[in-house]
């Protein structure tokens, strides 16, 4: 008898499989494509690989600020893409060997849930039937392509995160519909290599959900680098290479060799027999409680398929919560300390409440903010660069509620703020923490003392 069957080998599924295997459960993992899911194959990892190439190129081209001049700097788009593929292959193989090491049986093929009986949940894949005591659904999400008139007819001009990662040639111009995290990271990448990039965003600011002040600062930086932004603009029509959008009642057009649609993602809840279980949905995703249980006993869901958060690290932790509860360790999912990072150059990282969210939820808070330049190391390594660190604390006890940073390498230091929020540390405890000097992370400490 299988203790835990997992459908979907992304960051929720493979991490849950690894943890459950390590704890001695009999685990089977179904994956119809490649282990690692969207994150490893068409998301986090390939984009970060590409963005590092872009950053390296930027550094070479703009080295003169640091006294380094390189002549005839060139890049090879094909090589950049090839390296990305190599990195992905290596990491996918790494996940495979992890599964082996933890005795997880990996079934490569589509899985279909047949139903639930006394024998457990029945899953059929590649002609075989499997019965499991528990089922964890981690089928993830896919790019949402809105029904814009003319979009379908525009054929391969239209790209999502998937197609754009397998381009063979660099487009000369690119229109990006949706200035969210995915849109902005691709905007950053192609802008570095000289593609003319236009970002059309429906909302009044890019990167909704991040600190609005920082989103606006980042937008300014990229506008200086040549990206054209059209905010509060609604795309109404696509005609081949031409995107029509409405702004304040007027219609404009933007053209691009390619058009990236990055307006959001949608949970995958169809095509694998979910309906045979009678699992309840909520806003398009699978409805779960704080221990990731669905309404059906012994059936759990984790990751993007729940329809919110949509982050690899959220997914992994959700998978772990399932495994912990299955193995007798009480655990609940907490969403108040989930970090979010936009890997542009500079990066924006944030965790916890933004000012906007605190205001909306009527949570009494105090805020302090400092320019990144208060950290010596930032000055040393960011000639002419600017950034910001913002800390929100509770009004009454001074507990850390949110930390937001614009500047490199905020993605690598935001976890410190995650720990502070998870541990409900207050300013008093934070003030006693020693930060290494000189590091950019000291900006967090400086801001703590700015209260």
């Amino acid at each position, binding site marked *: 008898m299988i203790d835990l069957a997992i459908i979907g080998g992304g960051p929720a599924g493979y991490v849950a499989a690894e943890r459950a295997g390590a704890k001695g459960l009999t685990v089977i993992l179904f994956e119809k494509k490649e282990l690692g899911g969207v994150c490893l194959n068409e998301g986090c990892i390939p984009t970060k690989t590409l963005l590092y190439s872009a950053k390296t190129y930027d550094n070479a081209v703009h080295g003169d600020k640091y006294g380094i001049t390189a002549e005839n700097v060139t890049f090879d788009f094909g090589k950049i893409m090839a390296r990305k593929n190599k990195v992905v292959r290596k990491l996918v193989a790494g996940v495979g060997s992890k599964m082996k090491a933890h005795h997880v049986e990996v079934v490569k093929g589509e899985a279909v849930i047949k139903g639930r009986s006394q024998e457990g949940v029945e899953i059929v894949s590649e002609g075989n039937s499997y019965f499991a005591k528990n089922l964890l659904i981690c089928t993830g999400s896919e790019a949402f392509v809105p029904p814009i008139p003319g979009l379908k007819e525009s054929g391969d001009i239209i790209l999502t995160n998937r197609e754009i990662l397998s381009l063979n040639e660099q487009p000369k111009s690119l229109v990006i519909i949706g200035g969210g995290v995915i849109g902005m990271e691709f905007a950053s990448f192609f802008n570095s290599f000289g593609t003319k990039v236009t970002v059309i965003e429906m909302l009044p600011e890019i990167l909704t959900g991040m600190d609005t002040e920082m989103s606006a600062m980042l937008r300014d930086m990229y506008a200086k680098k040549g990206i054209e932004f059209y905010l509060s603009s609604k795309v109404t029509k696509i005609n081949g290479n031409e995107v029509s959008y409405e702004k304040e009642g007027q219609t404009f057009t933007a053209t691009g060799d390619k058009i990236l649609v990055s307006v959001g993602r949608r949970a995958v809840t169809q095509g694998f027999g979910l309906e045979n279980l009678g699992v309840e949905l909520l806003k398009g995703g699978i409805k779960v409680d704080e221990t990731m249980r669905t309404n059906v006993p012994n059936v759990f869901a984790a990751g993007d398929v729940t329809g919110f958060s949509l982050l690899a690290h959220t997914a992994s932790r959700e998978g772990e919560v399932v495994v912990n509860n299955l193995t007798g360790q*009480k655990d*609940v999912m*907490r969403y108040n300390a989930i970090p979010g990072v936009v890997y542009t150059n500079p990066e924006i990282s944030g965790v916890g409440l933004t000012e906007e969210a605190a205001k909306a939820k*009527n949570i009494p*808070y*105090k*805020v*302090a903010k400092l320019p990144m330049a208060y950290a010596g190391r930032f000055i040393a390594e960011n000639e002419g660069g600017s950034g910001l660190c913002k800390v929100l604390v*509770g*009004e*009454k*006890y*001074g*507990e850390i509620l949110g930390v937001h940073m614009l500047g490199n390498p905020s993605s690598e230091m935001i976890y410190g703020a995650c720990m502070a929020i*998870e*541990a*409900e*540390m*207050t*300013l*008093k*405890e934070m003030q006693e923490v020693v930060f290494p000097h000189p590091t950019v992370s000291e900006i967090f400490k400086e801001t703590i003392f*700015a*209260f």
Partner: protein
Amino acid sequence: MATVVIMPKQGQSVESCIITLFNKKKGDSVQKGDLLFAYETDKASFEETATVDGTVLDIFFEDGDEVPVLTNVLVIGQSGESAEEFRPGGAAPAPAHIEPEALASATPIAAEKTPVPTPINNGSSNAVSPRAKILAAKEIVETSTLQGSGPKGRVIERDILSAIAERPKMTPLAKAEAKASGNSAQAGSGLAGAITAKDLTSANPVYSSDYEVKPLTNMRKLIAKAMHASLQNSAQLTHHLGADARRILELREKVKKAMENGYPNNITLNDMVGMAVIKALKKFPQVNSHFMGDSMKYFNKIHLALAVDTDRGLMVPVVKNADDLSIQGLSNQFKAIANGCKKGSIDPDLLASDAATFTISNLGNYGVEIFTPVINLPQVAILGVNTIVPRPKDLGNGCYGFVPYIGLSLTYDHRALDGGEATRFVKQIAIEIENLEFEI
């Protein structure tokens, strides 16, 4: 040339207003007539519009700020112009959320000095040693539930230490919260089961956190305070009595007919009841008064207030010198103040409870048959007007028929008036209603 927009002074008694919402932000261009910001006093809300074209050079306040009247709120001018010299209080820094002094008292350093709620000692069973007490207070351990290991079951330091070792860790915030609230928790939902602040606030088993908390508007706060104070601080009771409504219904028909022929005043039943009340008040001056605790204020004139239901809540504007008015005048005044309330353009001075000498609250339109209105102190009575219902009546000669009756519910403050007076007064209103006369 930059134009400064100030917080207008709405009425003599208003010292400050709260800005509910800015419709423009710094840098926005404005045109004459554009809505700049909405604001409210204790009693009413208003909107400020631009009187010039230009660009918002600077805004000195944020949504929700309380701003003294006549203070500079924002500056409109041509971009490039300086607005700094208009900043209230000179070049003071922009209002920020950072308040060092306030913070100091919020940190646990200060919190530790606050007295820890002493655990309830149920029975004489467990005495606690001083060392144990200090440690228990520091680590937030509930000593009353501990089985002491000292002599005669005395709780000693090591009992506290083992209690600390056995319970889940508490986060620093949870400790601060526990000290302040005195709550404790046995299990935690934080890192590795640590007790978090959330675990100390018991969630409702029915709805958990599925609700929304909205702060009261100023107006709601004021209504709540006034109504609660009224019931707390006076001795109110209500007498109900009916008046034969045939006369006023007949008058109403006449008005309607006259209007078809171009008569300008839509005199309603409410206006007629108002007129009857004024006539009755003239005969019962002791009701046209304020109860001041150790004295009574008797008024020479009648200032009649009318309860008005608006989107923002209940408002009770007053018609000054109502006893000087003809029924046409009263009708017009009632309409004017009611519309003023609905639009939010009413003079706040007309809304003060001590501005009126008597109040009418009419729920007849809504079909209410009986209710007990609440007095707007320091007034001594309020008349609730109910719907008209047919009632059987002896029409003479053993003949019974149904006659329309309008219900009158008079709530009065028994501190100021006695039952006899109040009854005679409400009866007088009925008589006035039954005998009302006016020229159309």
